[in-house]
């Protein structure tokens, strides 16, 4: 039967540099690179009048642009578009609070922390925790651990 899950999460800048790639399916390295390039090609040509959803192979990409960064989630075609669109925003708000006005450079220099944030909010291709308060509490607790 149909599995509905996140297939991958990508954060890319306009130039196509990957700032985060989180894979929830097995892909080999070449395939990953291809997906990264295809997603970039698909989302960067779209403008503000377009929807935040775009068909992609047998899936769809739900994405949102923040300044020069594209946050993209690849899900199955029958999954709930708006729920993932807001999941992206929820994630961005957490990053913003955690990094105090997040910018692209924060994601570069703290790439290993971004993975922690992702794992708090998404796991195994599913939404894990949605409460910003809870996530921030947990992140601050982890931050203070040695």
């Amino acid at each position, binding site marked *: *039967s149909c*599995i*509905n*899950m996140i297939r991958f999460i990508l954060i890319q800048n306009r130039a196509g540099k*990957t700032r985060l*790639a989180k894979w929830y399916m097995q892909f080999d390295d070449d395939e990953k690179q291809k997906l990264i390039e295809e997603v970039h090609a698909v989302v960067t040509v*779209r403008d503000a*009048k*377009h*929807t*935040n*959803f*775009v*068909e992609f192979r047998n899936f769809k990409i739900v994405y949102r642009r923040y300044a020069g960064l594209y946050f993209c989630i690849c899900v199955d*075609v*029958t999954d*709930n*578009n*708006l*729920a993932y*669109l*807001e*999941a992206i*925003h*929820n994630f961005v708000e957490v990053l913003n609070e955690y990094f105090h006005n997040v910018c692209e450079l924060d994601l*570069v*220099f*703290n*790439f*290993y*922390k971004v*993975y*922690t944030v992702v*794992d708090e909010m998404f*796991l*195994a*291709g*599913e*939404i*894990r*925790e*949605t*409460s*910003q*308060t*809870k996530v921030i509490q*947990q992140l601050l*607790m*982890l*931050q*203070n*651990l*040695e």
Partner: protein
Amino acid sequence: MPTVSSRGDAMRGLAVFISDIRNCKSKEAESKRINKELANIRSKFKGDKTLDGYSKKKYVCKLLFIFLLGHDIDFGHMEAVNLLSSNKYTEKQIGYLFISVLVSSNSDLMKLIIQNIKNDISSPKPVHVNLALHCIANIGSVEMSEAFGQEVPKLLVSAHASASVKQSAALCLLRLIRTLPEAMTYAEWASRVIHLLNDQHMWLTAATSLIHTLSQLSPGDYKGCVSLAVSRLSRIVTSTYTDLQDYTYYFVPAPWLSVKLLRLLQCYPVPEEPAVRGRLVECLETILNKCQEPPKSKKVQHSNSKNAVLFEAINLIIHIDSEPNLLVRACNQLGQFLQHRETNLRYLALESMCLLAGSEFSADAVKKHRETVINALKTERDVSVRQRAVDLLYAMCDKTNSEEIVAEMLAYLKKADYAIREEMVLKVAILSEKYASDYTWYVDTILKLIRVAGDYVSEEVWHRVIQIVINRDDAQGYAAKTVFENLQAPACHENMVKVGGYILGEFGNLIAGDERSSPLVQFNLLHSKFHLCTPSTRALLLSTYIKFINLFPEIKPTIQNVLQNNNQLRNADVELQQRALEYSQLSSITSQDVLATVLEEMPPFPERESSILAKLKKKKPASVQVSLVGYHSPILAPSLLLVSLTVQMSLIRAYFSLFYQPTSIGYHLALFSPTYPLMHKTPVLLFMFKNSGVLFENALIQVGVKCEFKEQYGRVGLFFGNKTGNQLQNFAAAVSLAQTNPHNPQINVATQKEPPSQIDGGAQVQHFINLECISMFSGSPNLQLRCDFFTNYPAPQQVTLKLPVIINKFMEGVDMNSGDFFSRWKQLGQPTQETQKIFQARHPIDTEAARTKLTGFGMCALTNVDPNPENLVGSGIIKTKTSQIGCLLRLEPNKQAKMYRLTVRSSVGEAAALICSMLEEHF
């Protein structure tokens, strides 16, 4: 006392390194800097045995960064694994991160990693447990499933584990189940898992995802979740935004959990208990009501999350499909969205309405929005929105609005994006056929399609219009007139030439009375296009010309001139050369009577589903499904037209061979050639219920078959009859297994002796093949025949047939009583073991006839088993050398609706699916 530098978030060396990389002016400089760093790290790892945890962490993290930049990393894995056994969270975290991102599941280190995870998963520190769980979930390999399939569930229902650990455990388990469903034994704790939905903590989004997946795997065990999910949902939708503090997002209480619960409920039929059902309907009403309330915030986050819930609620309403009031309200709500300023909402409303169009209760309500949707087609800027509008127009099309919708789609086609044109062409073709009350309209529409988007008109589409014209007397004259007019355009698409050529060849006489379209004018018009066309179209035109000779004897000399022109007779294309030669011979040697018989009008095509529909279904399974009610399932007839055309040609050839021996210029009879196939090839599935018959026949050879089967053994007798007066030479018949692994064959074939290599004229020879079924297979073995028909013609002719060896031949019926049947039925309750199809009856519903078919198929039709005597139940065992596969079947007719529901269960899921698909055509 830790120094500042060892604090979690400050790895100065790493930050410096990243800065250096960013400051590199060129790729070369970057590579140089990286190589320097790699050398440095390598020497640190090798040299200094007393490297402290902090340094190790820093270097491993640098390696990870280098890897993420796109460079290969071939060392450091061991150091990363060492970090796992550190007591410090930050060191562990980097170790686990490196492993999740970089270590492949077949690494030699996996045993060591698993040992470390085992230690951490039983650690008293929740943060360590979570790191371990996240690592398992991120890697998610089969090995992980085997190692932790029993551990993770314990955490999930543990009384001591924190909410955060449970959250991770739920999703970790979900990942393991997806990787290896059979590694889990979850049935016994189903009820404990279900009751997580009652948990006080709001970590339920994760738990609901897990229950959702478990419900899909074994719905029976988890159906208790329905009432709990409904009450949970009810509590959320009736709460105010202050109730669920942390989980309220822009004034919407727990939107993601609500969506998950609504999706979970779509795994099950609508609850039967009135109280639960009532509560659910109330929830859905409340969600719809909330959309009418003034928004609590102007922020898009507020409306998005509210609408995420709304759209999922509408999905559930469509899934339930028995609450007319809700369906109509949903439709009205979506109607408002169609005009919303947010593109996202317009898109989603179109998509969702497409589903509502398929429900009898809301179909009419959807149609009221026709104008808005047509307007969307014209004005939307985003191609994907326009595509949804096309889908919706297609879904809402009916007899009353078809002309308008088709006209709008045709108008849009002119400027439609290339990406969607082919699909639109298919849709227009289907709608115009389905709702044609008047075939002139249909013909006009298809010809217009070819004019507007000729390149996107696939073979199926232009074949179909020809089939329909041939089958409809009332359309033929009009079709001839219209194609003639269309061909007069100075530049017309090649597909138009094909359709025009074919139709004039058949029905040109119907318009020949008018001097403006006299035979010669028709011929000259077609021939003026000839040189611009590809060989396949030219070949078709040559057939038209020979048909013209029959229809219009007065222009025979003109046509013969063309056929005998060196451009044709010496054409580099063998096909064209051959046709020209044969046709010119046919026209000069035979009498008018013979010519008239051979070139008679095409017989009507058998009525069957349009192959266009099959094509569209293949292209877009999801969106067309809804609107296809009333069509039968696809019968593969990809190029029926070409087959019948070539059949007619092989008739010509066969006829020809009766009079003429091959000539020195190389005329030959293409006995089995793929381009001139077969007069009659019995589809192998017709042998599903019988063991003997004619497998293949044309004017020259007949292949008969007679089979016997017992347990896993089969004996196939083949009878080859040469129908001509000439000897067939170098005859060979080879059996091959299609798509089997040669090292692991599903069928073993032993032929007693080779077939004779010659068959005398008029003689019949026999050939026996013994075989044994080794394991379950689908399809049938191939029988490849080849021979040289004429000694002086070097190329062998061949044809591939399917042997009537089908899996059901190895099935034996098993008689059993009601108790045994249902207890076995229950045992085979996994969703993977069952295939169910609901379909329109193809024959009058008659239990006795169905019973006979089932017995013929190989199953035992059981009596006094099903409480409803109308239902048919059967059981059988497929016997193969390696296994015996039990199969149970239940066929439930619905006489009012003339529908059947066919359910097959088997210990081997593939067998159930196969039997179901084989049988559904036959009831």
